[in-house]
């Protein structure tokens, strides 16, 4: 067996390249495909000889000898067939793996705004399932070139050698059957398209009825809806019946047409045996070949269908098959010092949309904590997100004197780490979720986020699986794991957007203290609506809903900002009441 590997492919948007890439496999398919299909004709020939051997009254030994030869030949042919089948499947497997890899690579290198803009997740999952259909079509096509094309040719040639006249007349109907099948293809396509359309319509209606069930129920609409749903189901049933009958029940009819020539075969062939031109064995060989050819011909329509389906799928996945990309990982950043300077920063999602924040200016350096707060929808999170550099911004964000957008994506990821509301955990172990493959030790960072005690109750320790999206952990545990991931690289700038909403007050205080003590080389931007922790930070940015902002330390804002003071006091009296989530 050849070594298994999955590698990128060049010019993945050309189908022919998938055959070119698998040179060895394709070579094997050709060799075994040709040898198997050509030698297949030996089966019926020896079967005929077997019959002849008992008819001619030869000795038992001869018959046994022919019998053994027959079995031996079949074994050889079938071994060839095994290799052919195996390599065709290997080809399909390789191709599907390369396509999947290429599509994945394409997705992962799309910009974040492209990924977020439409419901691309669904589109992509569909594209992935299209890979299966497409490869299935490619496999069938490859198989049928040999198993239909070569085999039919081999049979017809042999039959011509036996008797060209009988063959000429009897096989006339075979192309007729194939032509009818080909012509009916468009009709079948029409009906099956109508069925598929209706089927997805009914699925939509079903979804609507279930998704909005409470709306319909509260308004007493369910019984009226059900009646019309029944009509839709009836219509769907009719369409399904038509499409199915045309697509799958027609094959026996094609077979009948292709078989018409059997009359000629039996009559002329039989006469030839009677006139001692053929033996009974040859007669039986010939009939076997003829029936096999007719059967292949009647199944040709299936081949047409599968190729057509595969083309449709190919068209859908083609846009995602682009050249393989990988990130440039050269890095020129100053790891020792950090100076952040934000001037007149503005930010909006998409060109036509309104600015969420405007004219934000502040400065900071390593070892500082900058607090950001404000009412709902004042742009706190947006401000944090703008440091990621994944979305375009207005104004200037300079790190060590260089504009953020002028750094490469890789450099940015090495300077800034960001934690949003969503912990974004992978269904993997705690260790892998924090290190993401960097291989670092996580003991100290786990202590920083106060996870060491949690870990003691987990028998698997750092190798505990967190479940899909982290479901096996509590909300507070999830956000602390995500926080550990954000902290582990001790990046120059660490942006934390409300990381403690699911963490109790006491742990929150402890974590803040740890961060203050252990991350003196980082600049920390802490976004929160809970002002109690802000007495500890170096400076505070208070965003207002009207896109203005106030700056200052806790004490300064307590004096100068009425809003800040009011909220602070309210939150103090309201106690823990605010941790709703």
């Amino acid at each position, binding site marked *: 067996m050849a070594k298994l590997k999955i590698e990128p492919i060049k010019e993945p948007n050309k189908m022919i390249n998938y055959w070119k890439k698998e040179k060895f496999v394709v070579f094997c398919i050709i060799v075994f495909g040709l040898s198997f299909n050509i030698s297949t004709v030996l089966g019926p020939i020896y079967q005929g000889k077997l019959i002849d051997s008992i008819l001619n009254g030869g000795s038992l030994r001869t018959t046994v000898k022919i019998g053994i030869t027959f079995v031996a030949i079949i074994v050889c042919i079938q071994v060839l067939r095994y290799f052919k089948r195996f390599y065709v499947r290997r080809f399909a497997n390789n191709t599907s793996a390369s396509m999947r890899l290429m599509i994945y690579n394409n997705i992962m290198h799309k910009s974040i705004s492209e990924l977020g803009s439409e419901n691309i997740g669904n589109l992509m999952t569909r594209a992935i399932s299209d890979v299966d259909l497409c490869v299935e079509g490619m496999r069938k096509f490859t198989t049928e070139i040999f198993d239909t094309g070569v085999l039919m040719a081999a049979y017809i040639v042999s039959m011509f050698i036996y008797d060209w006249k009988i063959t000429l007349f009897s096989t006339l109907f075979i192309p007729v059957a194939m032509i009818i099948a080909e012509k009916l293809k468009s009709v079948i396509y029409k009906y099956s398209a109508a069925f598929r359309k209706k089927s997805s319509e009914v699925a939509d209606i*079903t979804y609507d009825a279930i998704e909005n069930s409470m709306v319909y129920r509260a308004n007493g609409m369910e019984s009226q809806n059900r009646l019309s749903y029944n009509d839709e189901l009836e219509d769907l049933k009719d369409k399904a019946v038509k499409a199915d009958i045309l697509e799958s029940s027609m094959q026996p009819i094609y077979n009948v047409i292709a078989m018409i020539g059997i009359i000629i075969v039996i009559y002329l062939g039989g006469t030839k045996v009677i006139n001692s031109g053929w033996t009974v064995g040859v007669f039986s060989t010939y009939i076997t070949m003829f029936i096999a050819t007719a059967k292949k011909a009647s199944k040709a329509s299936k081949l047409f269908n599968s190729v057509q389906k595969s083309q449709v799928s190919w068209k859908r996945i083609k846009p995602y098959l682009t050249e393989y990309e990988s990130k440039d990982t050269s890095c020129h950043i100053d790891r020792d010092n950090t100076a952040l300077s934000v001037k007149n920063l503005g930010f909006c999602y998409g060109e036509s949309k309104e600015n969420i924040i405007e004219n934000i200016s502040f400065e900071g350096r390593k070892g500082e904590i900058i607090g950001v707060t404000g009412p709902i929808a004042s742009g706190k999170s947006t401000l944090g997100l703008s440091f990621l550099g994944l979305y375009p911004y207005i104004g200037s964000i300079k790190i060590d004197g260089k504009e953020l957008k002028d750094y490469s994506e890789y450099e940015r990821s090495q300077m800034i780490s960001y934690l949003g509301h969503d912990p974004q955990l992978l269904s993997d172990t705690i260790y892998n979720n924090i290190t993401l493959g960097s291989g670092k030790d996580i003991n100290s960072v786990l202590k920083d986020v106060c996870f060491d005690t949690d870990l003691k109750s987990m028998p698997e320790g750092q190798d505990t699986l967190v479940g899909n999206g982290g479901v096996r952990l509590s909300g507070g545990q999830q956000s602390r794991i995500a926080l550990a991931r954000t902290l582990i690289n001790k990046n120059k700038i660490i942006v934390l957007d409300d990381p403690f909403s699911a963490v109790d007050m006491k742990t929150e205080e402890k974590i803040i203290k740890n961060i203050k003590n252990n991350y003196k080389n980082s600049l920390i931007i802490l976004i929160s609506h809970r002002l109690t922790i802000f007495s500890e930070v170096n400076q505070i940015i208070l965003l207002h809903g009207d896109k203005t902002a106030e700056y200052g330390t806790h004490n300064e804002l307590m004096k100068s900002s009425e809003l800040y003071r*009011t909220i602070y006091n309210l939150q103090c009296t309201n106690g823990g009441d605010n941790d709703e989530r």
Partner: protein
Amino acid sequence: MKDSLVNRSIVKVIKENIKTNLLLVFVIIGAVLTSLIPPQVLKHIIDFNLVPKNNDKLLTSAFAYMAAILFIGVFDFLKEALITILGQKVTKEIRVEMAEKLEKINARFFSSNESGVVVSRFTNDVDAISSMFTSGIIGMVVDCFKIIGIVISIWMFSAKLGVIVLIILPIIYAITRTFQKRMLKSQTENRILVGKVNNHISESFKNAQMIKSYSKEDYMEKKYVGYLMENFKTIEKVNFYDSVFPPIIQIIRASVIAVIVILSHRQLNFLDISVGMVAATIELISNLFAPIESLGMELQSIQQAISGIQRVNDFYNEPEDDCKNSELKSDNIIPTREKIDLSFNDISFYYDEGTDILKNINIKINSQEKVTFVGRTGVGKSTLFRLIMGLLKPTKGSITINGVDVYSIPNSEKRKVFGYVNQNFHMIKGTVAEQVSLRDKSITREQIEDALNFVGLSDYVATLENGCDTEVTNGNIFSQGQKQLLAIARAIVTNPPILLLDEITANLDSITEEKVVSVLKKAGEAHTILSISHRLSSMINSDTVVILEKGRVKNMGSPEMLLQNDEWYRSHVALEKLTWS
């Protein structure tokens, strides 16, 4: 499984289509019998014409052979077509029954089951069941008959040969099943891995921001390739079985043929059959393998469908709502709008015993009173509304309107009693007018236009391409605020005396909020309004505010009174006014 939905549907379809069934039975018998004829004709030709070299009636035999082929074709076609029709009828019937169930199912079902999952019960599971019925059960019957027919035909040639066939039959079946089982095992393994691959893709989407911000595209791709590789290896296993199985069957077939021919050699004279019989036996034996193979596949498809049947039957056994009192009419319950007495009589509610959502609630609400419920998220406010509308049944106590238990009001009358608006407008499939009427045929065009006019959407709707009849294909033609106004139009179109508003301004900005509130103020003149919200309490001048805490009424009274004597309410209102979360 006795009185399951699936069984009932299948039995019902069978009973309702007696003629089709009889025809199917006839066609199946015809297909089995005719498929035995060609070998017999062949035997006759060889023994009667070819061996004695006699061309008497050779042409007739040739035509007879063709006639048999024609009948086989026709019977096969009819068989496939009839099975398709019956299968589709079963599919439809199951769906109809499921839709009926959906109408009666308890409202809790929808909160604990995702729509997508329920839809797949209607689509994927039902499809699997119907294909089990057609290609599984019916196919199995057909194949059994075929095998029996072939065995009998061979037995008629020679009893000894019949015994030989009976001996090899279970051997072939055992080999086939062994392979199929192994293949199924690898396929199941493979499916789990495919699940992993797909999960990785969707996870990559969900966490795209995190992956990009840490530049971990490479890491994710490596993991992806790892999963692909595992998947790749199991596919290779499937490929191996898939490639090796048909060759083995062919080798067995050749060996059996060789043995039979040798045994029928005159010198041994063990079987004592003619050459024609040998040729016919060869053909019959060849035909024996196909039904055995499909028998295994059919068994498998039945096994696989069993989980689908289980799921559909589980759905069918979900608890239902109690019967409604169909004699109750809205006009009798509420003769005049001025006289409404809505009372909560010591109600309690829980989903799971021991964890009460609501406990001992006692409230009385009078005509045209405006009541606002406040409390933390998860305190059971929305549940309370569902109880008021009679969508859920209180575990203890009752809610009555003028003495009538709301739970007994039939769904079809509810729209004339309650208008319900919640924070998310559920867009349904259909036109703008249908968004308001929900396709209720008893609602006139005038009512729809009045409702749109009342909420101030008439002018906007008039600017749409087809006005009221514009098809709403996606939600984008309405802004968030307009959707909320549309939701109000939907609620008031039947002019119900009681309005239930669930956080309806939660997703709106302050300008749209004002618009919605002004419409509600207008509506307030003639309606009893119950709302859930913090901010609305002051905006629509509630008469009464009910504060819920831990499932109980913590405090209740006029807003002025609560502001004075409830500290929590006071600071809550203050924070809300500042839009601080």
